[in-house]
């Protein structure tokens, strides 16, 4: 994996993209916007399942409006994040805080999909099962953990 990361950061396309200042700025803006979109919409959906937001609407109604933006945000953050990662791939790969961040984001995205499935199955019912609430609570904690892990990458490892 380290060899792949070293090859990636020496790739002429990646070097060209990284040395283009407006494009680097564009990737950074997309990464932050995508991250805010995925975290904001998922957190509101989790809060609805927990009965703490938009209680007059059914969880499936909230999910119907927010889920498309949750996945759009995740796609924006992942794609732009790859280009930000690629320029310093080996340093990121060796930074344990970065690995923790990726692990938390993957787990949070999986739980987001689980919450989405459970809410879409609940039809127009206003209440949800205790199991769905537990999953939503863990999802909420994981996304807050993902934010904390994201800011710890440069703070502890000095990369990014």
């Amino acid at each position, binding site marked *: 994996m380290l060899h792949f990361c070293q090859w990636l950061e020496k790739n002429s396309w990646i070097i060209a993209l990284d040395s283009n200042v407006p494009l680097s*700025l564009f990737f*950074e*803006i997309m990464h*932050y*916007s995508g*991250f*805010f*979109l*995925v*975290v*904001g*919409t998922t*957190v*509101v959906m989790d*809060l*609805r399942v927990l009965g703490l*937001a*938009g209680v*007059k*609407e059914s969880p499936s*109604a*909230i999910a*119907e*409006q*927010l889920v*498309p*933006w949750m996945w759009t*945000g995740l796609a924006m953050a992942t794609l732009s994040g790859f280009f930000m990662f690629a320029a310093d791939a080996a340093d990121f790969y060796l930074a344990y805080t970065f690995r923790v961040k990726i692990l938390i984001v993957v787990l949070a995205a999986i739980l987001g999909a689980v919450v989405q499935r459970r809410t879409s199955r609940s039809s127009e019912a206003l209440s949800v099962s205790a199991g769905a609430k537990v999953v939503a609570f863990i999802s909420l904690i994981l*996304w*807050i953990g993902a*934010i*904390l892990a*994201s*800011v*710890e990458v440069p*703070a502890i490892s000095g990369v990014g």
Partner: protein
Amino acid sequence: MLSFFMVIAKWLQSTWWALDISGSTWAYPFVQATHFTGLSLWIGTNLSLDLRLMGVGRKHRTAAELSVATFWWNWLGLLIAITGGFMLFSSAATKYIPNPAFEIKLGIFVPLGIIVHIVNQQMAKSWGATPDTPAIAKFMGLVELLIWFAVITCAVSIPNFDTH
């Protein structure tokens, strides 16, 4: 005017909370995470409402329903973002004050974004009463969306203007 703000900035930087944040390895990332958590709630819910007003995405539910459902967490997000942002600013206020990207972000785009958002959130009740939104709603949704992208652009540009 700048010297007046610099006097306040120097005082802020000498407060106990600013010294605690700047003097600790752990405090700064935690405060930054608080700021980002608030921003995620605020920007995430704002963008989803703007896109709904623009008529993008699924149209079975109305923009009015989305606006009501996200209202309290939307504003709580801004409160958290401002609290975290103020603490981050306090820890290095004299560096932020002369930074043009910070000045444009906080002096122009953030107040403008909040005003446009209040208008959109209030008008969503009538503009978004039916699944199809009118042209003015689409236009205002786009305006707010562009303002928040401008805020993020200014925010990520702050380190590029850092002269210290």
